[in-house]
């Protein structure tokens, strides 16, 4: 009987998920005109400092172990916040570039395709980096490896600028505060 209950609960949850996806898809189709990108600019310089290995080593040398662990946890939490923002931005750019794939201009389509690839790669790397950070919160001494996210974000920035330029040559585009 317990097994039956487990399966029924799983089936109901799955059905709710499927219905939710269906409804959200229908809403997306009907309100596509009102899509407003909610890209949150990211301070790349601050992000770079946070994930800098030499900064890490310097803090490790200069601070007593308990103090270093405390500071490192703070840094990891801050890095996680940056990575979450970069992942969200990547998701928005996937939506934007998928819309651009229907363009009649082949250059725009190519730029959109590159942007999708970069954004998906970044989102994938962001998930792995977040996992590492959550492990790092338990063992702060293992260090932070978010370089692929940072590099990916910079590449994404370039692709987004190119697509923005092709779509609307008069309007500049960026997704980071400074570099």
């Amino acid at each position: 009987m317990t097994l039956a209950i487990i399966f029924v609960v799983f089936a109901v949850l799955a059905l709710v998920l499927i219905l939710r996806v269906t409804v959200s898809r229908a809403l997306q189709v009907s309100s596509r005109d009102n899509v407003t990108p909610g890209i949150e600019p990211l301070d790349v310089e601050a992000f770079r400092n946070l994930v800098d290995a030499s900064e890490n080593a310097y803090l490790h040398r200069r601070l007593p172990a308990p103090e270093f662990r405390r500071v490192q946890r703070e840094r990891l939490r801050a890095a996680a916040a940056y990575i979450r923002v970069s992942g969200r931005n990547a998701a928005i750019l996937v939506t934007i570039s998928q819309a651009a794939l229907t363009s009649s201009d082949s250059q725009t389509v190519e730029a959109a395709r590159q942007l999708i690839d970069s954004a998906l790669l970044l989102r994938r790397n962001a998930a792995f980096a977040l996992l590492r950070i959550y492990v790092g919160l338990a063992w702060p001494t293992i260090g932070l490896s978010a370089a692929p996210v940072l590099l990916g974000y910079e590449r994404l920035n370039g692709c987004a600028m190119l697509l923005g330029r092709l779509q609307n040559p008069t309007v500049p585009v960026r997704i980071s505060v400074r570099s």
Partner: protein
Amino acid sequence: MLQAHSILWHYLWVAPDLLFMLLGFFLWRRGMGRIFPAFVAFAILSSVGDLAAYLADITPSVSPANFWRVFWAGLVVESLLKFLVIGEVFSQVFAPYASIARLGKKLVSGCGTLLVLLAAVMAAFSRGDSKFGVVSGAHLLEQTVFIIELGLIVFLFLFAAYFHLSWDRLSFGIMIGLGVSACEHLAVWAIIANASPSEHVRTLFSFLGMATYHLCVFIWFYYLLVPGKATVKPKISLPENNLAVWNRELERLLQQ
């Protein structure tokens, strides 16, 4: 009305199969067999299998043992085709994105392996609902297939949602139909295989199963034959920003 061999019972068993077979042939004629060969095969062969089971059920000369042989054969073929359809939709949705296609393949293989193990363990712990092995075995096989099928479908929906990938209409429709059908069937077969419900409840469950399948056939008809809204995708512009900063960013990228 809600009794085995009532008019409604005959209708709910035969009509969805005939409609689904018709859809399969129609899709084949329209050349969809090249895009979704497994789904077209699933539409035709699973309907044939189900209709064969129906004929075996209503023909007095067919013994119960032979009915269950026919049922088993149809079940095995249908199950294999369903997994092929899921694989086909997966390729259709994720293959164009090189950066996540490999990861997706690895994850779906891993997820499939885990689901097979889980389903096998669950089957081992199920107590069976009939003294006849051929009957309880069929119910357990159904439960096993639906666990794996639904697990894979949920995984695909979550994976696509995480990456904000949009589904094409046909793939989406196929998965919605399979998903709804798998949800209902998993719940029902799990109760039948584990909770030994009364004969009356079993009959009600079989009506529910047939009605859900009928609904799924309508879903497939809607998504595969009715064209989607012809929306002209508007150009979604990226956010505006300061030209000087943009130029500086571009310079830095060029210097790298």
